[in-house]
C-alpha cells in the first residue's frame, strides 16, 4: 500500500492510500511511528483515501494514539469518512482521537 507523506510547515501529514486492513495496517503503523519519532509527535493522519478500517487497523491507530499520548498530545485524524466514523463509534474509540475536516485546520492546531 502506498503511503503518502508530506510536510506542511512543521507537521508531517501521513496519508495511507487504501483501507487500513491486516498487513497494510501494519505497514502504515510502522511508517507512522517513524514519522512520529522524526517530528516529535507532530503528525496528522489523513484518512481521506481510507474507505474502511478493520480490527488490526484500529489496533494500529490505538497504538499510535497511545504513543502520542505519552507526550501529552492526542492523535489527530482528518477527513474520516462516515464508515470509518461509524466503526470508531461502535467500538467506543471516538474519545481517543481528535478530528478535523481538512489538513489545514489539523496543522493549525499544532500552534
Amino acid at each position: 500500500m502506498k503511503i503518502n507523506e508530506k510536510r506542511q510547515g512543521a507537521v508531517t501529514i501521513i496519508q495511507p492510500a487504501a483501507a487500513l486492513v491486516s498487513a497494510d495496517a501494519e505497514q502504515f503503523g510502522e511508517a507512522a511511528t517513524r514519522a512520529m519519532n522524526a517530528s516529535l509527535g507532530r503528525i496528522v493522519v489523513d484518512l481521506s483515501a481510507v474507505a474502511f478500517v478493520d480490527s488490526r487497523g484500529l489496533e494500529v491507530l490505538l497504538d499510535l494514539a497511545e504513543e502520542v499520548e505519552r507526550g501529552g498530545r492526542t492523535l489527530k485524524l482528518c477527513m474520516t469518512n462516515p464508515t470509518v466514523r461509524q466503526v470508531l463509534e461502535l467500538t467506543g474509540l471516538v474519545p481517543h482521537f481528535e478530528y478535523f475536516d481538512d489538513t489545514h485546520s489539523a496543522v493549525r492546531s499544532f500552534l
Partner: protein
Amino acid sequence: MFSADAAMASTGIAAVAVLVMVLIAMSAWVLRSQRIAVEVARQQETDAIGSLLSESAGRMLAAGELSPLRSAISTAARNWDLSVCRIVVGKQQVIADADPHQISMQTLPDQWSQLAQNDSSTAGEAQFFPIEVPGRGIAQLQIVPAAAKVDYWQTQAGMGVGAVIVLTALLLLYRFTAGKLRPMWLVRDALGAVAAGDRSADRLSISPTFGEEAVAWNALVGEACRGAQPNLQRTSDQRAAREQASDLDAACDVMTSGLLLVDARMRAKFANGATAVYLRTRREKLVGQDISALLGDDRVLNAVRSIATGSAQGSVTIEVERKDENGSGVLRFTVRPVRKSDAGAAMIVIDDITQQRVADAARNSFVAQVAHELRTPLTNIRLYVETAIEDDTGDVAQLRNALNIVNSESRRLERTVSEMLSVSEIEAGSIRLRSDDVRLDEMLNEVKGDFAQQAKDKNITFEVSLPPKTPTLQGDRDKIILTVHNLIGNAFKYTPRGGRIAVTLDVQTGKALLDVADSGIGIAPDEAELVFDRFYRSKDERVSKITGTGLGLTLAREIARLHGGDVTLQSEINKGSTFTLSLPLTEARAA
C-alpha cells in the same frame, strides 16, 4: 454457644428439681399434719366415748343388767364405729362384746377378781377404761376405734393439680427468661473469645434476630474491630496517597509542554511524558539520571547548570534548533530556579515551537511579498503621475498613455489588496462570494490588455481566444478576475523568454472552461497536487529564483471551488503547463 445452653439448662433443671422437692415435702407435711389432726380428734372422740360408755356400763353392772349392757355395747360399737368394744371382768372374761362370739362369760358374776390393769391405758390401739362396780369389783371397758378411713385423695388431687400448675408456670417462665437471657449468654461467650485474643468481627457477632441488644452488640463489635486493624488502615492510607500522587502524574502527562525538575547535580528528579518525547528518550531512563547529555545544546546545558547550582538568578529562555537524521524542529527551553529547599534546584519547561516558527516564517514572507507586490505598482503610479504633472508639452497622447498605465497599475494594486483580503478570509473561514454578472468576454479582453506589456517585455506570444458567443455567468467578479490573473500571471512568471501563452475559453453545457497553456518550465508529477497547497513553493530551483507568495494557486482553487467549479492541472516538466479553470454556468445565456 453450647455452654450457654448447658448453663441455662442445668440451672433450670436444678431450680425445677428444688421446687419439685419442696412441693413434695410440703405436701407430705400437710398430709402428716392432717393425719395427726385426725388421729388426735379420733383420740379425743374415743376418750369421750369411753368415759361415757364406762359410766353407763358401771351403772348397768351395778344393777346387774347384763342384756341391756350387751345391747348398749353393740349399739355403741355400731354408732361410734368401734372395731372392738367389750367389757372385761376378772381374768380376761368378756361379759359383753359387740361381737357376740367373743363373749366368754354368759352370766354376770357377783364378784370378780381384780384385773391386771386398773387404770385407763392404751395398748396399741385399744383403750381401756376402768369401771368401778361397787359391791362386785372393777371391770374394764376395751375400745378399739376403727381404722380412720379418711380419704386423702382430695388433698392429694388438689396438691397434684397445684403441682402441675406450678410446674407449668415454671416451664413458661423458664422459656421466657431463657429467650431473654440467651443473647446475654452469647455476649458472654463473645467476650470470652475477645479475652482469648479473637478480634474477628464475624466471629464475635451474634445473630441480630435476638433483638435490639444483639444489633447494638454487633455494631459495637464492628466499630471496635475496624479500629483494631491498624495495618489495613495504613495500607488504605498508602493507597490513597499513591492515588493522589498518580493524579498529579497523570495531570502532568497530558501537558504538551515538557516539565523537567533537576537537582544541583544535574539529575532529573521529575519528568513528565512530554519531556521524554522531546529529549528522545524513555521516562524510565530519565528519572534519577544525569540529563546533561540529553539536552543537546551547550547554551541550555550551561544555563541549567548555573541555575541549578545557584550561581545564576532569574530565568533563561533559549530556543534551540535541532536538525538530525531523525528530523528537525525547534524547541524552546525555559529554565527557572526553584527556591524551595528540597524540591530540586531547577525547573525546565520545554515547548515545541516548530509549527509556530513555520507559521511566523510563512507570515513574514507573505507580508514581505505583499509589500513588494504593492510597492511596484505604487512606484509606477507615482512615476507616471509625476511625469504628467511635470509635463509642459501638453502632449495629449503621452498624457493618455500615462493615465492608462496609472489605471492598470491601480487595478493591480486592487488585485493585490483583494488577494490579501481573500487569504485572510480563507484563513478565518469567513470567505463570502458576491453575486455579480460577469461578462467573460469583457473580462478576458481587459486581462489581455493588462498583460500586453509583459508579453512584449519577455517576447512571449500571448493569445486569447474567445468563442463567438460568450456567456455571462453569476459570480464574484473581483474574485474571478483575481483567479484569472493569478493563472495568467503564473504562466508569465514561469515561461522563459520567447515562449508562448495561449488562453482559450470553451463553453460547454452548464460550464465554462478557461485553459491557460504555457510553454514554461512545467511542474513535476509529484508536485502536481502540492502546488495548490498554502504557501507551497516548488522545490524546483528555477522557481526559488522567482518571487511568489505561494498563495496564488491556493486562492484560485478555493475561489473556483466556492463557485462550484475547480482548477485542474496538466503539466510536463520542461515542456509547459496547462491550467484549466472551470466555472458553472447557472444560466446558459449567450452574450
